[in-house]
């Protein structure tokens, strides 16, 4: 009997375990797997440039075998604009944490969409600032304890940001969705979202955006299993999965 590989290392893989420093059970690499595989499926690998400004993503995104950029926290959105404008034929993905997109980079994010920049943005939402030690992020859920909301997030600290819903109202946005990988079905659905988002870029329609809810067991002080449950039972009810915009022309 012959064996055929069904699934293994993601496509676009630079075999370098030294650079793979994510925590056990971290779901971050699942979205990178999705992104890498979709790039491969769309056949755009040779012209892809990944721009990563998500903090925990630094080591994780470095596993790619394609051109990559690592600007500072919050800058990846504008930096991607710079790359895409100079290389309109290239395929540009910008990765950001929820801190990047919803906090420090929110102005860049809104304006990239307003200008209808033709690249794709992935926001990895792990509900807090993981790299710096688990502070409140705009996406933090109500009641969630972080190092800067030690009593849990209360209304005095505002309410969880819903970026895909918000950016869907901007005319320059071609596609906006929220996915997760709390189970295999949602993993596969998220992959579909990502593929659609990327196709908008290929078709030069407009700005495309996918938020990914990502379990962070270490940062949340949970077992991996508890962290998946948290995504399911806490995050998804507040931050529903699905598509919020999907158009083929912006006019």
């Amino acid at each position: 009997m012959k064996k055929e590989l069904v699934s293994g290392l993601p496509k676009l893989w630079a075999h370098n375990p030294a650079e793979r420093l994510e925590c056990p059970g971290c779901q971050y690499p699942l979205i990178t797997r999705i992104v890498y595989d979709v790039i491969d499926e769309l056949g755009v690998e040779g012209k892809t440039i990944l721009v990563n400004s998500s903090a925990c993503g630094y080591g994780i995104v470095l596993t790619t075998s394609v051109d990559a950029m690592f600007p500072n926290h919050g800058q990846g959105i504008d930096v991607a604009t710079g790359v895409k404008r100079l290389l309109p034929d290239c395929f540009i993905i910008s990765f950001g944490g929820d801190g990047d997109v919803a906090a420090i980079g929110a102005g860049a994010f809104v304006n990239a969409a307003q200008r209808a920049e033709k690249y794709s943005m992935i926001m990895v939402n792990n509900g807090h600032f993981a790299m710096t030690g688990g502070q409140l992020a705009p996406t933090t859920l109500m009641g969630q304890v972080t190092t800067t909301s030690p009593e849990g997030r209360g209304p005095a600290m505002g309410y969880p940001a819903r970026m895909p819903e918000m950016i869907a109202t901007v005319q320059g946005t071609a596609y906006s969705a929220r996915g997760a990988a709390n189970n295999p079905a949602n993993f596969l659905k998220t992959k579909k979202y990502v593929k659609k988002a990327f196709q908008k870029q290929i078709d030069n329609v407009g700005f495309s955006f996918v938020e990914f809810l990502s379990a962070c067991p270490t940062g949340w002080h949970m077992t991996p299993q508890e962290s998946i449950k948290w995504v399911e039972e806490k995050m998804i009810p507040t931050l529903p999965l699905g598509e919020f915009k999907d158009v083929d022309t912006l006019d």
Partner: protein
Amino acid sequence: MDKSVSKRADLIIAGLGGQGILMGGKLLATAAMSLYRCSLWLPSYASRVRGGPSECTVIFSNDDIDSPILSKAYAVILVDPPQLKLFEQRVRSGGYLIVESAGLNETIERKDIKMLSVPALNMAVEMGDRRASNMILLGVYLGVADSIPVPIVEEELNRRFAKKEKVRLLNLNAFRKGLEEAHKLAA
């Protein structure tokens, strides 16, 4: 070190993140406060990597503590044996290198320092929780260095874990096991 005058003591604890390196050092430094005019704890850990190299410096002294950084210390506790050669160089002449024996498969070259190899991990597993190994090594250190009277350290330990009785007991026992072990090794 002159145990009776005890004007200054210093210590480096080194290992990997998650081995209780930083906590152990801070416990000692806090305990030392009531005894010494000055006490200092300086952590040092890799920024991006969880589980990477981790180290802390502990100094107590009745004189001002100038440099918070030690080129060399009287004692080094090494929880991560593969780094032996590196830390052999950081012990002051006449001092101690206290090293976890599990995974240790070399020895030191210097003759002017003493190496104490301690099966702390095994001992901790026997006690029911591998995470207690750091307290065992701390006990060994105090056993040989005697820089702070044992009751003061135990008091601080009890205070720190006041709200977690099981953890308190585990750590206290581990610490005492370490002291015993020191006396055995010294003998």
